[in-house]
Each structure stands twice: as C-alpha cells, then as structure tokens.
C-alpha cells in the first residue's frame, strides 16, 4: 500500500530496465541526493565529518569495489588493505612529484595504478578458486604492506617511515592538510563516491555485470555461452582494484592525513571491508552502502551509548563494543545470510501489500 506499483506502466525497454523502476523509489533516491548535497554540507562539523560521514563515504567506495570482485564476480579477495595501501602510496608519490596537478586527478590516477597492481595479483584466479584464491590474495596483502615498509623510496625517505599528505585545494578550498573544513572533506568524498557508484551500477547492469555474474554462478556454463574467463576475471580484478585504490588514496589524503602502512592498511582493514560487503549484501550496490554504514555507525553508536549514557570507562566500553559488534555480525549472518540488501528487499515486498492481506 505504501509502496505502489499500480498504474506505473512501462512502455519502453529503457524505462523497464532503469535502476529504480518504482516511482516512489526514484523520488526517495532524489531526496537522498538532495539532502546529501544540499543540507548536510551546511550542518556538518568536524566531529560528524571525522567520525561518521567521511569514513562512511570512503568505506562505501571500497565496499563497492570489493563487491564487484566478490559479490558480482565470485572471486574471494583478502587483499583489500594492501590494495588500499597501493592507492594511498601512489597518491602520495604523485602529490609530491607533481604538486601543481589537481588532487582529483591524482586520486583517480592512484586508482588506475592500483588497477594495474590488482590485475597482476588477479592472474592466479585463472587457475585457483575459492579458499585457495583467498590465500593467494592474502599473500598480496602481506607482500604489499611489507613492500611499503621496506622500500624507503615509497615514503620519500622520511625519518618516521610515515607518509603525510601535503595541503591541496580543489576549486580554492582545502581538501587535504590541516586547514581543511569539514564540509570540504565531505563534499570532495561525496562527489567521487556518487560518480563511482553510478559507474558501478551501469557496469553491473550491463554486459560486463552479466559476464561477471555468469562466471560467479557457473563458470563452465559461462564459458560454453562464449564468456572468456580470462578477460572477465581480470576486468573484475582491475575495476575492483580501481575503486579500492581510490578509496585508499582518499583514506590517506583526506581522512587521515598521515599514514603508517601497517596500522592503516593492515589485514584488519581487509577483513573490515569484506565484512561490510557480506553484511551489506553480496552482489548489490545498495548493499555496499548499507554494509559500510552499519560497520561505521555501529561502533560510534555503541560508544555513545556505553560511555555517554551508562558512563562506563572508555577502555571497558571499547572492549565491550568489539564483543557486541562481533556477536552482531555472527547473529546477522545466521539470521540473514544475504545481508541488509536482502532484508531491505523483503521489507519492500511486504510493504507493497501491507496492511492488506492480498
């Protein structure tokens, strides 16, 4: 009843295959975009930007990237942290080598470089599948972190071994460095996220997405109908790595500002983003957003409740928070293995009729 399809007729195939075929959905989507661009930038402060919005936006990019690889193409990867590190270090090297070039171009180039590295580490996927591939990508994770620690050229021979982002502007506003305003950070990440999410949606609904899903669902049948497994898997690795590289570059330059590779891009990061994809929903762009929101917001929410409401000690609250998040992930996976996206879908199907029985 709240969710009406009646009277919403499609007379062309273009209309029938649009992203939000139901009118209510379409309007809600426009409303979200309007609030994200028109309202939040004026209300946001440093706390909200750093604790909630900027990490949410950046993790969403990474989750979309990983979802393309794991959710759409069915190739498990535990190398996300390593690939984010590639994006971050590529961005750092580009920023210091070509200071006059816009950071937007650096971020996108960093994604491109990560795509190349991802392609390289995707090669084993042609021979190995499942758990074995996960172990191979785990090797990528450890190798890349080791590489950025060991070779001083990557961190410009700085004494601390850290990389820190120089100040850069977009359209006259600082987006990196100490003088950045909360709304500039937020808007910079938002624009990139919206652009990339739109591209990802287009890729996954067309030929490329069908090839990926065919390989995921049944690789033998995919090959028989004419899908080249080599180019299909490698394209998934490259595009996924591009997204993850962009996320890594933003994570370093806009969000953290200064990075030590083992701390920021360790194996925990790989698992965090994999959890986002699994909890949000494999094979769903919306699920990537939902998973990122869940895992970014939940700790913040729990911390506020435990410390702010109950007045617990911060370290105790931090431990309890870890246990609660872990337990929730397990409960979630048992209750709804297809993630938040599936829950959302079920809710929508229920709402079509509710409160009437038919």
């Amino acid at each position, binding site marked *: 009843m709240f969710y009406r399809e009646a009277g919403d007729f499609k007379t*062309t195939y*273009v209309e029938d295959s649009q992203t939000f075929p139901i009118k209510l959905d379409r309007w809600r989507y426009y409303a979200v975009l309007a609030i994200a661009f028109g309202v939040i930038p004026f209300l946001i402060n440093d706390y909200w930007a750093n604790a909630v919005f900027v990490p949410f936006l950046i993790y969403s990019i990474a989750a979309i990237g990983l979802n393309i690889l794991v959710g759409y193409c069915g190739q498990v990867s535990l190398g996300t942290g390593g690939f984010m590190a590639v994006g971050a270090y590529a961005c750092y090297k580009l920023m210091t080598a070509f200071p006059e070039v816009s950071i937007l171009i650096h971020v996108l180039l960093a994604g491109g470089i990560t795509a190349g590295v991802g392609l390289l580490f995707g090669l084993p996927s042609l021979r190995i599948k499942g758990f074995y591939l996960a172990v191979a990508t785990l090797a990528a994770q450890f190798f890349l972190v080791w590489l950025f620690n060991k070779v001083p050229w990557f961190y410009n021979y700085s004494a601390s071994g850290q990389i820190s982002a120089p100040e850069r502007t977009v359209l006259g506003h600082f987006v990196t460095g100490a003088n950045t305003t909360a709304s500039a950070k937020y808007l910079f990440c938002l624009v990139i996220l919206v652009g990339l999410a739109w591209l990802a949606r287009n890729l996954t609904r067309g030929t490329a997405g069908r090839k990926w899903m065919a390989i995921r669902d*049944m690789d033998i049948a*995919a*090959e028989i*109908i004419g899908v*080249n*497994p080599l180019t299909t898997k490698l394209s998934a690795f490259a595009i996924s790595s591009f997204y993850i590289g962009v996320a890594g570059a933003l994570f370093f330059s806009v969000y953290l500002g200064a990075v030590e590779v083992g701390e920021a891009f360790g194996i925990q990061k790989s698992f965090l983003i994999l959890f986002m994809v699994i909890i949000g929903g494999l094979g769903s762009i919306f699920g990537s957003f939902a998973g990122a929101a869940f895992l970014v917001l939940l700790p913040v929410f729990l911390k506020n409740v435990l410390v702010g409401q109950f007045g617990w000690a911060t370290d105790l609250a931090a431990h309890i928070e870890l246990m609660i998040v872990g337990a929730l992930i397990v409960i979630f996976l048992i209750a709804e293995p297809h993630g938040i996206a599936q829950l959302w879908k079920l809710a929508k199907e229920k709402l079509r009729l509710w409160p009437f029985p038919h």
Partner: protein
Amino acid sequence: MTQDASGYTAAGGRKIGGVLMEMKNITLRFGGVKAITDISFDIRDGEIRAIIGPNGAGKSSMLNVISGFYVPQEGEVWFKGYKRGPMKPYQVARLGIARTFQNIALFDGMSVLDNIMTGRLTMMKSGLLSQAIWWGGAQKEETEHREKVEKIIDFLEIQAIRKTPVGRLPYGLKKRVELARALAAEPKLLLLDEPMAGMNVEEKEDMSRFILDVNDEFGTTIALIEHDMGVVMDLSDRVVVMDYGRKIGDGTPDEVRNNQEVIDAYLGVAHD
C-alpha cells in the same frame, strides 16, 4: 531416402542441406579409458540429428567434443567446411554453436531475463568505458538486444517469469529458460543434452513442439541426445546409435529401429 552432397528431402517435405558439421574418426581417451572410439558422422544443415545409446555409451562426451569442451586425441572436427583446430569453449560459442546441459546449468543468482541476455554476450560490442557511462552506446545496444530476447521469450511462452530469479523456478521451466538462453545466441547448430530428462508427458510434448518450431522457424540445425525413444523416433531426421564408445548404427529412425546390432545393444543378447 537418397542422400548426396547437396542434401536430401526429409519427412514432411523439408529440404535438408549440405554437411554443416562433420566428425572424422574421433577418438577420445581419459587416461586409459576410451570414451569414444573412432567415430565418424555428419550433421547436415537444417536437420534434427539424434545421438542415442545406452548409459555410458559416450553420447555426452561426443557432445562435449562438438562444443569444444573436450579435445579428442585423434580425429578431425569440420564445421562449415573448415577444419576446426583445438579451441576453447568460448571460441566455439562464437562460431555459432550453442548448447544446453543434461543437468541444468543456468545462472541461479540472475533473473530469467538476464540469463537469456547472457546468450547474446558474444554479440555485444560496447567497451567497458561506454558501458560504465551507459547513456548512448551501451543503452542503445542493450535495448536492441532486449528486443531480440523478448522475441525468444514470446516464442517460448515464458513472458510471465521474465523478472523471476532462476533459482525459484520449477524444473520444467528451467529447462525452457536454458533453451531460451541457447537460442538467444542465434546459433547455427544447437546441441541439446537430454532436453526431456525428468519431464512429465505434457512437458515433453511442449518441449518437442519447441524443438520442432525452432528447427522450422529459425532453420537451426539441432543435435540432441535423448533417452525417450518415442520422442527421438518422432523428432529426428537421422539417428546415430552409440554403444561402449563405438558407433553401431546410423540412419533414419526406421533404419535404426530395424538394425540388429542396435536391438542387441538395447535389449541385450544371449551369450552362449
């Protein structure tokens, strides 16, 4: 029935053309096991060719050789007058050979429409970048192919389920969707591996009708494996009979039915 290089006239006055695919002295081994021993036969343009035989005779292996899944150790495969070298299955698909599987091999996570659209992947040309931008090239191409796919959906009478995820469909419909996916590729040669397995009489009748219609309307050459003898004898123009990896009979249904070796293979023969 007279047969020559230019073809013959089949039952019902259908004109059957020249040789489309020819298998010459095919031998396929798995280690020490010979699955196929020195088999030759041809498939002519426009005919419905059945491959029959008891279980384990090597029929499915034969189909896998045709579709490029297995490469035979000996023998030659000729298609459209050219000798086919060793090829990957996806390259064979691009030559115009499509197939269905004995145990359904659909993409469970995708809708019926998407599954059938995958059949046209080899014909979709727009690059990754144009797909990512979507507006313009990719969308236009998508719509063109959607129109073709909708024709097949109408043809196979599955309009009502086009948005349903394949995993939710009953067996008979899955078989039909798989046929639709193969047809979407507009193949020259369609291979059907037990299209009627596990179906009830009505479903078999439907499927038989579709196979005849496909052959009739699109002029698609069909090679099928089937265990239901009634169906095979009614549908096919010529039949190859295999037993233990050898060819023991080849000809029209009537010729095969009266072949002593075939009768022995199916009914068994007393050893004394």
